[in-house]
């Protein structure tokens, strides 16, 4: 055989041996262990830390909420109604620990490859309070099975929040169990309240009877009203602008401030008061027999300015303000009823 062919064959043989040796050297030891893949990767993938950890994990600390929930319709496993904690609250992760979680498979890999911006989200520390999650499941929508409880939001709630009447942990209506809005800091609210004083009075007693007194009003109602002005579900030339500049904390603080201020009964026409007192029986269910509402997100009426009360009822009548209950209630009232009721509540002692 010619020399060049012999050398060519040697070259090919050397390359082939090198290739086989390279395969032996570089192939991962666990490859082919179970099949044509790297056997160790199974356990590596399985080693990731779960972020959703289930009800039992929450139960150990939040016993009250767990007890409320466990006897409610939201806990009906097997029937297609099983709304566990993390459905609304999101993954619990490492909460309440503030330590970071161990890295998962992908994160370790990213680190090894020098990718620094790959840090997946793992909740820890204080978890956020869920926003209005109810509508995700309960808004009437074509495609949802009929057994699912659904409501037309506009007709059912208007601008009212779900939690005004329902406690999500135990959604059957029970006003005693309704969630309390987050409590603000009254002293911090005083600074915010300075901007309100020009109209509503520095101490929350309005300078003009056409505008509402705020002193002694429920903080929850005040917060919700400000939120409604800010989001635009309620509009008012002055208030929409005022509320737009307030943060959630500002609203809670200023509401706390006015709710703790001393209220002042404005008083009303004596003749109308007596007539109004009779008519007021139909308001008592929600606003209390003496104008002090049992639900912190519904307004107290006792001692409120008569002018303001009557203009509010009229705004429900003409539709410029909307509320699932108040709109229909207001429409049953005559002009006289409105005046009498306003006078009555204005004269009731607010203390």
């Amino acid at each position: 055989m010619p020399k060049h062919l012999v050398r060519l064959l040697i070259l090919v043989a050397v390359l082939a041996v090198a290739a086989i040796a390279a395969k032996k050297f570089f192939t991962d030891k666990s490859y082919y262990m179970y099949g044509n893949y790297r056997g160790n990767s199974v356990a590596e993938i399985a080693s990731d830390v779960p972020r959703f950890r289930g009800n039992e994990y929450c139960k150990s600390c939040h016993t009250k909420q767990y007890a409320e929930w466990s006897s409610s319709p939201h806990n009906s496993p097997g029937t297609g109604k099983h709304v566990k904690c993390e459905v609304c609250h999101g993954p619990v992760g490492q909460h309440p620990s503030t330590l970071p979680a161990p890295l998962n498979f992908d994160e370790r890999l990213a680190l090894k490859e020098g990718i620094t911006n790959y840090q997946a989200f793992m909740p820890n520390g204080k978890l956020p309070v869920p926003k209005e999650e109810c509508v995700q499941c309960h808004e009437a929508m074509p495609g949802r099975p009929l057994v699912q409880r659904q409501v037309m939001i506009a007709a059912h709630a208007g601008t009212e929040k779900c939690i005004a009447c329902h406690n999500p942990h135990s959604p059957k209506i029970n006003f005693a169990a309704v969630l309390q809005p987050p409590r603000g800091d009254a002293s911090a609210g005083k600074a915010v309240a300075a901007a309100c004083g020009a109209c509503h009075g520095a101490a929350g007693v309005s300078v003009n009877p056409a505008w509402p007194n705020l002193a002694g009003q429920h903080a929850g109602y005040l917060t919700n009203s400000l939120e409604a002005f800010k989001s635009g579900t309620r509009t008012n030339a002055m208030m929409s602008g005022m509320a737009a500049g307030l943060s959630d904390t500002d609203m809670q603080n200023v509401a706390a401030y006015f709710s703790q201020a001393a209220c002042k009964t404005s008083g009303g026409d004596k003749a109308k008061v007596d007539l109004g007192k009779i008519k007021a029986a139909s308001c008592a269910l929600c606003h209390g027999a003496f104008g002090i509402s049992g639900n912190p997100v519904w307004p107290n009426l006792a001692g409120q300015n008569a002018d303001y009360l009557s203009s509010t009822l009229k705004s429900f009548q003409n539709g410029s303000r909307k509320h699932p209950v108040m709109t229909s209630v207001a429409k049953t009232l005559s002009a006289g009823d409105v005046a009498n009721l306003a006078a009555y509540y204005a004269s009731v002692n607010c203390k």
Partner: protein
Amino acid sequence: MSNQDTKVGKEASDLPRRNFLRILGIGAACTGAMVSAGSLIAKEQVNESATAPPPPKIPNYDWNKHKWAFGIDATRCIGCLRCVEACKAENGVAQDAHHFRTWVERYVYLEGEDKPRIDSQSDPQNIAASGSEKEFRFDNRYKDAKVEKAFFVPKLCNHCTHPACVQVCPTGATYKTKDGVVLIDHSYCIGCEYCVQACPYGAREFNHVLGVTDKCTWCYHRITKGLLPACVEVCPVEARIFGDRNDPQSPISLFIRNNRVAVLKPETGNAPNVYYVGIDKDVS
């Protein structure tokens, strides 16, 4: 005869086919490759698989004892998309409207129309309704329309018995585990996206940061710890069912036994392991 029996029967009849494909693959490769190297590799494979290795080192878990399967009761789904958000949070999936391990489709038949109007949470109008690509909800766009029929269908990886994605993976970075889950070894994937093409269900997505393909694992890190997959855990209406087919009393065994179940695109021969109840002719 129960569904389980037919399943076992089917698998047995498929065995020769798998071996045939394997032999065909090895044969084709050997002729194509440099003959010596090729046959060495093939021999090695056979030798290694002859001995039974210990199961993967997962604490308190033996993959020989489980056979996972998934069920979807579309008649219960309310399209709240808690599953989609939970999946993204649990698995660190890209926070945009183009990468999902699971998603939900809405089928709406309007009066006088033959074909359904279909959308998923990714639809631009639904994204506009949620206000961001990090939160998902269905825009209530048909609330005033004359709807004849409408329903939601959750979708996810079918963890097929004969997965086309695994078949086409050139490196063996994606594989089927003994307990019936199709996984991806992100440290071995070269990112060619051939598997993305091969999946008839569109279940695979590409992780552009790591340069690897990603997909649903049935939350393998959860189910091997005795937990449910995240989407099943958060489904408030129990439309998602998960369990072990080796246990005749598991939720999935009962679901398959007590219902007339269907699978998606059976004609592809992939033999999916996600069983549906309450889907319609236009769902594929």
